[in-house]
């Protein structure tokens, strides 16, 4: 790429993020209540109507589920508190600017594209979730667990209609929808709880003492549905830990936690984990167990209707919509780097079209566990790169933020660490049979080791000037 083209690309990226270049100032820091509300709201969402039922479909036992979720969520909270938050409060920068300093604008551009595509698919899954509720009054044929492609004309029409509404609302105003999401959050959590409690008598639970027996015999029976693999404690634990891998060890939540007064605010992620990724997943699992006994329809709309009637349908639509909207907005923001001359509404429209087309395929919703794991895995290596650059390079006498210091457009250590880590994870999966949920842990260590070694090679190759100057500055 010619220098003028590359510098234009960097300028385009910078223009989009013009308000986020500086570290957050002291007067803009937020107190604990904001983080508690934010995490609780963000993790009680449309996906929770899908994930809990998928655990039931994969035949996990009650003990494995409760223990696996408990341990996995502890590890997720620790990842936010001990890995993401300390870097966020020390730099006060968002992921974008920190990565730009380390990896250079061109590699950041590539990261943004991958991120945007993942956002489109995630928003697509949420539109599918909402469509399962909207379609009920029209007697739409619901997608089934093993459906990959659109299964009826009614599904196609409903998804297109929901996608169109969500896209238009995203174009009209992201801020208002974000405010509406905050209003919906406490109500949404209570809907999950109410749905589960209300259907327990239909499963045979008439007193608290009955719950454990029914949980083992009728809900989390240990028997997977036809065509589904069997999940163990380890699947649940690693999924709970890594389903937000892009956010905690992938460091995307630096964008949020840079506003924290203290690093230990990262522990407030526990409100999201234990309300959303514990209570809500258990609640939606209970709902699907009843659905399997009755109609066999396990799509989010029908199961929420079983628990709460019309209010349940409203919850599914609101959950899908409020999650899809900010996701489309974020995808649009990242995509704007490719189309700098387009107005924001045009970019959002294009993203909305891609998202809606993706939503037509029920596979995105029915294989949400795999998609979420893949999403985190794809972005995680860059979190490991930032972690290594921030904590480990100085200990070896190497320079941090090397791309910025050298005015590099593309950091080859960061790029190779990203690419080779993903290649190694692919190899572990294909040749050694390591499951998708388990790849994040070895992947993080591989990315860390690669970036450390490659940075050492890069900076030593540029020596003596680099190291001399660094030593000189330290002195």
């Amino acid at each position: 790429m010619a220098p003028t083209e590359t510098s234009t690309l960097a300028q385009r990226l910078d223009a989009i993020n013009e308000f986020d270049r500086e570290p957050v100032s002291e007067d803009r820091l937020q107190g604990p209540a904001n983080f508690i509300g934010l995490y609780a709201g963000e993790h009680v969402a449309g996906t929770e109507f899908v994930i809990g039922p998928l655990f039931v479909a994969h035949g996990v036992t009650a003990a494995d589920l409760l223990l696996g979720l408990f341990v996995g969520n502890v590890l997720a909270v620790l990842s936010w508190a001990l890995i993401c938050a300390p870097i966020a409060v020390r730099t006060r920068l968002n992921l974008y600017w920190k990565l730009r300093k380390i990896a250079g604008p061109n590699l950041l551009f590539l990261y943004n594209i991958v991120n945007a595509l993942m956002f489109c698919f995630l928003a697509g899954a949420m539109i599918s979730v909402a469509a399962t509720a909207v379609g009920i009054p029209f007697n739409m044929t619901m997608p089934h667990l093993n459906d990959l492609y659109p299964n009826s004309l009614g599904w196609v029409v409903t998804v297109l209609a929901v996608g169109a509404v969500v896209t238009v609302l995203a174009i009209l105003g992201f801020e208002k929808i974000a405010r509406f999401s905050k209003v919906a959050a406490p109500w949404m959590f209570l809907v999950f709880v109410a749905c589960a409690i209300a259907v327990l008598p239909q499963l045979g639970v008439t007193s608290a003492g009955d719950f454990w027996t029914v949980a083992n015999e009728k809900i989390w029976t240990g028997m997977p549905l036809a065509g589904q693999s069997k999940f163990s404690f380890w699947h649940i634990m690693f999924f709970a830990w890594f389903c937000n891998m892009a956010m905690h060890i992938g460091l995307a939540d630096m964008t949020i936690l840079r506003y924290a007064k203290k690093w230990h605010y990262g522990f407030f992620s526990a409100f999201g984990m234990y309300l959303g990724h514990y209570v809500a997943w258990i609640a939606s699992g209970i709902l699907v167990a009843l659905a399997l006994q009755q109609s066999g329809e396990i799509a989010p709309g029908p199961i929420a209707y079983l628990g709460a009637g019309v209010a349940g349908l409203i919850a599914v639509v609101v959950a899908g919509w409020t999650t899809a909207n900010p996701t489309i907005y974020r995808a649009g923001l990242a995509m704007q780097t490719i189309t700098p001359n387009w107005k924001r509404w045009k970019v959002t429209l294009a993203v909305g079209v891609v998202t809606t087309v993706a939503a037509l395929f029920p596979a995105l919703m029915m294989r949400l566990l795999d998609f979420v794991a893949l999403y985190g895995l794809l972005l995680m290596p860059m979190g490991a790169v930032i972690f290594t650059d921030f904590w480990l390079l100085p200990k070896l006498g190497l320079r941090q933020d090397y791309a910025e210091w050298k005015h590099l457009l593309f950091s080859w250590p960061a790029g190779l660490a990203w690419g080779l880590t993903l290649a190694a994870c692919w190899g572990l999966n294909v040749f050694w049979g390591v499951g998708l949920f388990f790849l994040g842990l070895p992947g993080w260590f591989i990315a860390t080791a690669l970036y450390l070694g490659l940075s050492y090679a890069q900076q030593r190759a540029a020596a003596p000037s680099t190291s001399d100057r660094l030593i000189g500055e330290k002195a």
Partner: protein
Amino acid sequence: MNNLLKILSFVGLALTVGPAFLVFAGTITWPTHATLMLLGTLLWFGTAPFWMHKQQAEDNG
């Protein structure tokens, strides 16, 4: 006015979750629970945005 809105909002939340426990206890039927839950939902969304947005603006401002 603000306090009245807040009270109505919390009544809405109570109507969203409370009836489920009454179904569990066998005190009310499932259809009654679904109706009360819908009423609670309407009450929450009809009142909460007014005081929550105001409070948020004060917190930010």
